């Protein structure tokens, strides 16, 4: 049985239909990349998965639990789903280590000392142990984004949602963040990424979904999508990406 299953999901903002009858399944330990132009519905789909947005129609089942019937404990669900945003969204009034320990201490009720110990290990792992007591505005974008990933990991999630996490970064900072995501993939973390980094998607993804105007237009292995796309719209999109020098 798949870990995430999205069935016939639709979502509109006013008259604007952002997701249209979307189906998606994700197996445990798999990495799924959502590609497509801005506004194609990638971010909205991710936000529906941890109920930051409510779906209008359809059903989402995560870890055997239907989350779209209105009876789910939202906070309990979010505990097992980590999300990282394009704009990092670190808490600017807290030091790096406090950013990482907030969730574990307040939500999972881990003791402060235990949470700090785990946080130090995480910061060590992302190579920022020496920045534990700095405030976010003293860090580079890439460092902030790695802290945001550590903050999500501190909740020991079963699923990570990464929402265009390198799109706001200077090009030379992208690599350090992607290296961390690559490492997560190797440890078997189940992940869904919305991304514009095509070569990276090709490298880490088990499956790639191309979204266009709120519809999953094509879903296939990276090899198939990038070498032999079936849908004309996928071909068109990839041609534009190549033209822009992004693949």
């Amino acid at each position, binding site marked *: 049985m798949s870990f995430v299953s999205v069935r016939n999901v639709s979502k509109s903002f006013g008259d604007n239909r952002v997701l249209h009858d979307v189906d998606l399944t994700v197996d445990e330990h798999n990495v799924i990349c959502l590609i497509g132009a801005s506004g194609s519905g990638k971010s909205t789909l991710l936000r529906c998965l941890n109920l930051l947005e409510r779906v209008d129609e359809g059903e989402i089942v995560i870890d055997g639990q239907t989350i779209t019937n209105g009876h789910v404990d939202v*906070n309990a669900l*979010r505990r097992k789903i980590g999300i990282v*945003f394009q704009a990092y969204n670190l808490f600017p009034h807290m030091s790096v280590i406090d950013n990482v320990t907030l969730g574990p201490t307040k*939500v999972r009720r881990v003791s402060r000392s235990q949470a700090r110990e785990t946080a130090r290990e995480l910061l060590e792992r992302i190579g920022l142990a020496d920045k534990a007591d700095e405030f976010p505005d003293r860090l580079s974008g890439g460092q902030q984004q790695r802290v945001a990933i550590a903050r999500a990991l501190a909740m020991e999630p079963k699923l990570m949602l990464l929402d265009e996490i390198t799109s706001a970064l200077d090009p030379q900072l992208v690599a350090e963040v992607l290296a961390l995501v690559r490492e997560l993939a190797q440890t078997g973390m189940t992940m869904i990424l919305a991304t514009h980094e095509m070569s990276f998607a090709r490298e880490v993804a088990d499956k790639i979904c191309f979204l266009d105007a709120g519809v999953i237009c094509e879903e296939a292995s990276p090899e198939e999508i990038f070498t032999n796309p079936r849908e004309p719209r996928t071909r068109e999109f990839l041609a534009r990406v190549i033209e822009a020098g992004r693949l």
Partner: protein
Amino acid sequence: MHKVLQDFFSPHNFRVALPTVWQGFQLNLKLMVVAEILVLILALAIAIVRGLPGRGAAPFRALAIVYTDVFRGTPLILVAFLVGFGLPGLNMHVISTQSRFVYGVVALTLVYTAYVTEVYRAGIESVHQSQRMAARSLGLSYMQAMRYVVVPQAVRRVIPPLLNDFVGLQKDTALVTVIGVAEAAEQAQQYSQNNYNFTSYVVAAVFFILLTIPLARFTDHLIMLRERRERAQAT
């Protein structure tokens, strides 16, 4: 000219009035401290209520709006009359048997809570939606997100306007003289009437000025610090 100096700035009257006005002014200080503490707490609570989401909270939101509209719109002197003379007239248990000092605190708190609620609310709304989203996505509840993420940032941002309102509150403690609280203005008035001289009012004014100047400078200092920090971030 001599008459002006004699009536307003008489050194002799200044010296004589000083102790009694100072005694009254201590009451202003107490009014101010008690009211400020109450205002800080109540205003934050009301600001949070006003921002509560969902249909279930609509009646509470409405109450909070009515409260701020009414007490921001009513002159403090009228509130003081209503509280200081009205409540004792009700002949009710507890409510009607408080001291004038307490009624003074209540009047000041009612009015200034309404102002400060708006200050807090502006601060809370200025914290970007994405901060709330990040907090909630960690599994924090709405109130936890407010407590640990939104309110601490909001309060930091509104400290200068908050202190500004407190300068206003400090001065307005003189207004509760109208319900017979024996504070500085009241003492000054009595001295003035007994001695046909206005210097006692100047004494009271000096006390108020000496109290508000440090607070005003401190506020300026905080604003300057923030501007410097924001400039540093922009580069």
